[in-house]
Each structure stands twice: as structure tokens, then as C-alpha cells.
């Protein structure tokens, strides 16, 4: 393992120290491991809180700021935050208008957020939860823990954050988040495995000429192994897999997120984006908005994920609304 760390045990604490130093517009509570807006709490504004294992940067801390999240709780690497941490985030940011949790569908995240919601309720704070489960690589059945939450998390945080910023009620903020989840599908391909610092070695071994198809964001292997092929062929499989599961038809518009998994250069991500745009055009679909870059990563995993969100006027307007965070800024 070759990483820019001090010790495997101090990765999260040392990163939080760096985030605090880099972003004076954020408050970093290093003891409770909460990153929140410096101007929180804001009376009357619904509070949007997310969190999850570290290693997915800029998710979630990079999306804290006006127009997106009020607070983010980073857990240990690839491990969900704990209820105490989430409760500290609620207390630090609650402005009396209610709290909406954005939770990626992983067993540990779901349990810890749900315990935190119970604790908050005991303090008289109403919490709603938006569960993100966009990964079509996982069969959504009683034989799995359900679909994983991946790239769509960024879309959900953006549109729900924009609506919360406008003073919407908690039920409306949660509802638009759920609508964005329902409109989104994702699929990912890995060229290399991630190395968790505490483990010290890659999560799986992959020969030079093979890839993992249908990976998540936690370093676990995907649904199958396949030979490496040109980007055009890989993108064709990814797009077709998503479309087979999506309710998109010719003439529809989408928000397309071509997301790097951590170790893939932008040069390659743009090659992927070009192929995505061409493939979607062949199917009569238009990309109304896009993001190309590293947004929901998996440490040093090479590869990409594609998220397609079916667009409508409301989602587009919220997508375009001003946002001022470390990782996403416009307006």
C-alpha cells in the first residue's frame, strides 16, 4: 500500500483537520466528526443531513454549503457514521423546521441513521429519511439487501438542497428527494480495486486485462468479471444496462453524471462522456445537464459510474439553482 497518510488509524481525523484548514466557510467539529455550514442553525430552514463511510470524497463533506447539505457525517473508511455523530449533526444544524436525512442503501447506514432518527425523535426533532438506491447492478429482491445507493446521491442532495434553501417544508424536501431517486439509475465498471488503509491491500485482485462489471463504491467485487474492452464497448454495455431498467423513452431528457471512482483521469472520463452522449443520442435521448468528474469515489478505485436521472422542469430548475460547496459551485 502506497498512500499519503500518517497512520491507517488516523486517516479520518487527519483528513478532517485538512478540511477544516482548507474551508473556513465550514465548521468542522472534529470531536463529533461533523462537517456543517458555519451559519447553522438557520431558523425556519429544513436541515438536510447526509453521511456515510469515508473514502467517497467529495461525497458528503464536499457538498456541505448553501444550496446543498447543512451537515455531513463521515464515518470510518467505508463504514457508516454512528448514531451519536448523526445526532450531533442534527443538534448543530436543526433550525426548528425539521430534518431530512439522505441515506445510501447499505445495511449499516440504514441501521445507524434509523437509530439516530429515533434518538432525535426523543428530543422532539422530526426526521424524515430519503433512501437512495439507484444501482441497477444489484437485483432488488428479497434475496439481497436491496439496491445500493451510489451516484444518484449527488443528484438527490442537489435538488433537495435547492428546495430546502427556498424554504420548503420537510415533507416537500423529502418528497423531491424521493422523486429524484425514483428518476435515477446508475451502473459502474471498475478497472482496479480500492485499497482500504486499515486493510493495506486491494479489496480484490484483478488481472491487467480484466475488469469488474457492476461494482459498488465500497471496494467489494462486482457482479461479474469481464475482459477489458475499448471505452465505446464498455459504455455501450453500461448505457444499455441502465436503459433496460429505466423508464426512459425517445424524446426524454436526462441529467447525466459521468463519475470517476477515484483513480481515473478526467481525460478518460471525457472519453466516456463522449461515448455516453453518442449512445444516448442513438436512442433519441437528450442530455439536458451533465456532470463529469470525481463526485462519488471509492478511494483509489479506477473506473467510472454512469447515473442517468430522467429530467423534468422542476428537477432541472432545482439542479440549476445556485450552490456554493467545496466540490460544486455555481450561480
Amino acid at each position, binding site marked *: 500500500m502506497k498512500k499519503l497518510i500518517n497512520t491507517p488509524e488516523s486517516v479520518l481525523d487527519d483528513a478532517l483537520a485538512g478540511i477544516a484548514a482548507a474551508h473556513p466557510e465550514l465548521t468542522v467539529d472534529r470531536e463529533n466528526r461533523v462537517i456543517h455550514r458555519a451559519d447553522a442553525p438557520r431558523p425556519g430552514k429544513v436541515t438536510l443531513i447526509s453521511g456515510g463511510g469515508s473514502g467517497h470524497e467529495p461525497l458528503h463533506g464536499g457538498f456541505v454549503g448553501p444550496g446543498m447539505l447543512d451537515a455531513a457525517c463521515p464515518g470510518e*473508511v467505508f463504514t457508516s457514521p454512528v448514531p451519536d455523530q448523526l445526532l450531533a449533526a442534527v443538534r448543530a444544524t436543526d433550525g426548528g423546521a425539521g430534518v431530512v436525512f439522505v441515506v445510501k442503501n447499505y445495511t449499516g447506514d440504514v441501521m445507524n441513521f434509523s*437509530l439516530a432518527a429515533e434518538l432525535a425523535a426523543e428530543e422532539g426533532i422530526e426526521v424524515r429519511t430519503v433512501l437512495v438506491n439507484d444501482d441497477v447492478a444489484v437485483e432488488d429482491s428479497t434475496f*439481497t439487501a436491496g439496491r445500493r445507493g451510489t451516484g444518484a446521491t449527488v443528484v438527490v442532495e442537489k435538488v433537495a438542497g435547492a428546495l430546502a434553501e427556498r424554504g420548503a417544508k420537510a415533507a416537500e424536501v423529502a418528497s423531491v428527494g424521493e422523486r429524484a431517486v425514483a428518476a435515477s439509475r446508475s451502473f459502474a465498471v471498475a478497472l482496479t480495486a480500492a485499497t482500504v488503509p486499515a486493510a493495506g491491500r486491494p479489496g480484490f485482485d484483478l488481472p491487467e486485462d480484466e475488469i469488474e462489471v457492476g461494482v459498488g463504491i465500497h471496494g467489494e467485487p462486482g457482479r461479474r468479471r469481464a475482459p477489458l474492452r475499448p471505452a465505446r464497448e464498455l459504455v455501450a454495455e453500461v448505457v444499455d444496462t441502465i436503459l433496460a431498467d429505466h423508464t426512459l423513452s425517445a424524446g426524454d431528457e436526462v441529467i447525466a453524471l459521468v463519475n470517476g471512482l477515484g483513480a481515473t483521469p478526467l481525460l478518460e472520463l471525457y472519453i466516456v462522456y463522449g461515448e455516453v452522449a453518442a449512445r444516448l443520442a442513438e436512442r433519441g435521448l437528450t442530455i439536458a445537464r451533465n456532470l463529469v468528474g470525481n463526485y462519488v469515489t471509492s478511494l483509489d478505485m479506477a473506473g467510472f459510474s454512469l447515473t442517468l436521472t430522467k429530467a423534468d422542469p422542476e428537477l432541472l430548475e432545482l439542479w440549476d439553482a445556485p450552490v456554493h460547496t467545496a466540490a460544486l459551485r455555481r450561480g
Partner: protein
Amino acid sequence: MRNDLDRELALAWLRTAAAAVERQHEELTALDAAIGDGDHGSNLRRGFAAVVAAVDALDADATPGTVLGKAGSTLISKVGGASGPLYGSALRVAGAALPAPTADLTALAEALRAGLGAVQKLGGAAVGDKTMIDAFEPAVAALERAAFDGFTLREASALAAEAAEAGARATIPLQARKGRASYLGPRSVGHQDPGATSTALLFRALAEAVTA
């Protein structure tokens, strides 16, 4: 040798468990890397180190239930992931069922049955899903049988440890239906479940603490 669970034995159990986790964290992490994300050992190691510090700070008049309950709430607040809430709830609920200064084998088995129920409620898993339940359920059943048959705590805890270990080994051919390993589908077959393995380790720690 003891035939009841008292405060000292509860403390000894947790310290033995922490030492076992410390010794075997790399093995647990390797099992987790095969079908999960490779942090089970390091997460439990962090959690049990905090557990030992927390229970050592308890008053001398603490009941075994208080000790286990404190261990549970510490795991919930330190571990994260799924194993924090699952092990944490198991110990908290088991602890709440042990209010007296000492508990006999029957009471211990009942308390651990309640703890198992908390895990099943939280995780929704059953035997055969390739989770910690595959070790936990047979271990509790062994304790119950041993209590019914009038065995000593020493004999019962040894039988429970063996049952948990057999249950953990039996997860190897299974396909995971819960937790992160379930995302792998058929690819999860052929690997021992890390959660069932750590559960077996905790029951072995009980047997060792009773014998010591």
C-alpha cells in the same frame, strides 16, 4: 470455576473477547475483504478497545447486566457499519435482561436469546442468510439445551462455542442474502462469513473466560 454469570465474569468475558479480536482482527478483515469491504476486523478492534475502557470505568457494584449493557452502547457509539448496531443491540438487550447481581445458566441463555432477537429484528436476517445469525442462533440453542439438561456453565459455554464455530463454517457454501456480501450474489459462495466468524469468536471468549 463459576457456575453463574457475575460482574467479574462479564468483565472477563469482554476482556477475553477484546484480546481475541486484537489477535484475530487481520483474519476477520481478510474474510471481509473476500465478500465485503475489508474492515470488519479493524472496526471490531476499535470497538472492543473502547468497550474495555468503558466497562473498566464502571462502579464496583455494577451488575453483569450493566456491564453487558455498557459494552453494547459503547459498540453502537464507536463502531458504525452494521456490526456496531447489531452487536451493540445484542449486548444491550441481553444486559437489560440480567438485572440481578448473578445470573444462572438459564437466565444467561434467556438473555442471549433476547439479544439474538434484537439482532434479528434490526437486521431482518434468518439462519441460512450467511450472517452472524448462522453462528449466534446455534450457540444460543446449545446454551438452552445445556441449561435444560442441567449442564454446568463451563460445559454449556464450551458447547455454545463449538456450535457457533460449526455455524460459522457452515456459512462457507451459502449465498449471502443480507448485508454487503449479498451484492455479490453467487460470488459470495465459498467464503466464510466474517460476521458469523466474529460471533463464534465471542462465544469462544465466553467459554475461555468461564474456564479461566
